[in-house]
């Protein structure tokens, strides 16, 4: 019962809180690097959300075992498959963002947003 309660209720709230932390961090933090990290937290929360959707207690990997064709015994593979793609997307977004941060840091010598914007206007 406790596991079912956890899986159906508490975990979803934790993921929602994690997502909001990321979103809030992106708005609130002034350092560009930290903004990027908050963005990653937000993206990870979505991945966890998808995985929770496909989660089933006592389910096995969806490979045909002993001729059992009843889908109840198998985990849903689709969310996992989707999230493999989403992880690649997150990786490339982070890669692009880090590259841009290197360019910004080399030119402006800082990653504080206000400072960068001030030097940009000079």
């Amino acid at each position, binding site marked *: 019962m406790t596991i079912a309660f956890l899986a159906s209720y508490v975990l979803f709230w934790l993921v929602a809180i994690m997502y909001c932390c990321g979103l809030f961090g992106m708005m609130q933090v002034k350092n560009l690097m930290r903004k990027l990290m908050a963005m990653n937290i*937000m993206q990870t929360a979505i991945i966890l*959300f*998808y995985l929770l959707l496909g989660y089933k207690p006592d389910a096995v990997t969806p490979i045909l075992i002993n001729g059992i064709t009843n889908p109840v015994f198998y985990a849903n593979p689709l969310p996992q498959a*989707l999230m493999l793609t*989403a992880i690649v997307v997150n990786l490339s977004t982070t890669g*692009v963002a880090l590259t*841009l941060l290197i360019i*910004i840091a080399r030119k402006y010598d800082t990653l504080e947003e206000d400072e960068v914007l001030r030097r*940009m206007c000079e």
Partner: protein
Amino acid sequence: MITNAPVLIVLIPLATALLTPLISYLVPKLMRYLAPLALGTVTLLSGYNLYHVVNHGAWHYHFGGWTPPFGIEFVIDPLSATIAVVVGLVATLVIIFAKSYLPEERENLLKFSLFYVLFLLVATGIFGITLAGDIFTLYVFIEIASIAAYGLLAMGGYKAAVSSFRYVLIGTVGASFYLLAVAFIYANTGSLNMADLSTLLPPLLTDRTMIFAVAILVAGLGIKSALWPMHTWMPDVYTYGPPPAVAFIAGTMTKVFSYVLFRFLYFILGGPGNPVIDTVLFIIGILAAIAILYGSIMAIAQKDFRRMLAYSSVAQISYLPLAMAIGSPAALVGLILQLISHAMTKSLLYMTAGGIDWKTGNVNVTRFNGLYKIMPITCGVFLVAACSMIGLPPTSGFFAKWYLLTGSLSGHQLLFAIVLVISSLLNAIYFLRLLERFFFRTGIDDKIDIQIVRFSVRELPLSMLVPMITMAILIVIVGLGSGYLVDFALQYISPLILGGGGL
């Protein structure tokens, strides 16, 4: 081969993008022609698609022989095929334009080829968005287009890197909203296929989770399509990005996201009539009306030519959500016409901005006095684009606005009609002001005080002039042929819309 035309539209730019660095290393001379050739082929293929679809009805292309809702499919109907043709045309012309803008030296070869790679990847993503028949496939293509665009727009220097980084953050929030909405939709319906969802989703819209899903979906796509007040990334990005890249991205990308919003609201979620969708349409209609006035007024206040065009984009893109909010058949025809017309006009305007910058090294509108004497063809082309923006016949912009206006009047949406008219007046203010500087004003003592930084050719190189002139001619052709266009392709859209649903 021709039976695989839908997938080739996406595959050809993707394959070319991956091959370009190798070819730039082996045969540098070939590289310049590879990307235009690939995009030209894709345009022809999408033209064939349009022809096929108009004659034989919607084309469902199943991947690997798996039928939906289990398999992935591309759906080509007259609407998506038309948009693919327009995107292809803009991409081809802009990439020809880009040739002279990029450095000639061999040391810059890598950077040079990277521009083509990213440009082709953005094109891949945008073609994918127009054709995808699956909401998760759509997400993947959205991210391909966006990530490539972040890189492409950052190539304009240090300021571009900063503005592009902010675009990364905001764009990712938009995409993550969309992905979250997909999760909710999948959890509630168990399907990701658009045609499947169009029957499954509308009955579920009374559910609170689904209303939340629709809300974040609209917010996510609103961020991506720069709907006010989520437009803040756009002016900086369009100002500092490299001009050919901006010409393509400003022309097509935000419009394609509006098209996705249109697809969702009118095709998948069932269109007006449902209280939830009506509320959404009302809200985006109000936001769009504010955006149109705000963008136009801000555009008047700008001194930087590119920033002026960016704010003008904020206003012009909002015509599309406004048309969705009006919702009468004429307004929806106006929506498609505005999409086509603005894609061509805005990319032409950014090409003229890029051309003027290339020749004079100047983007400040107060120093354009008497430009006509130095760059007559560019100014002529700008005149056509400005007419289309203001909405003067015989350009395409006039017919788009005409349909929007008649649509809003027949739909009894007086407020929106008033906004449309005021917006045209404001557009006229900032474009006529520029035209006056170009054609009638001169500097102090009748001398033209424009400096020229490149003397190699008389005006602009042929590879810049030809795409610009072609685009201007296309704008007039689309304008004059808009009646034919409506009969040919768009009449198939409106019954679909009126019937509600059905991809």
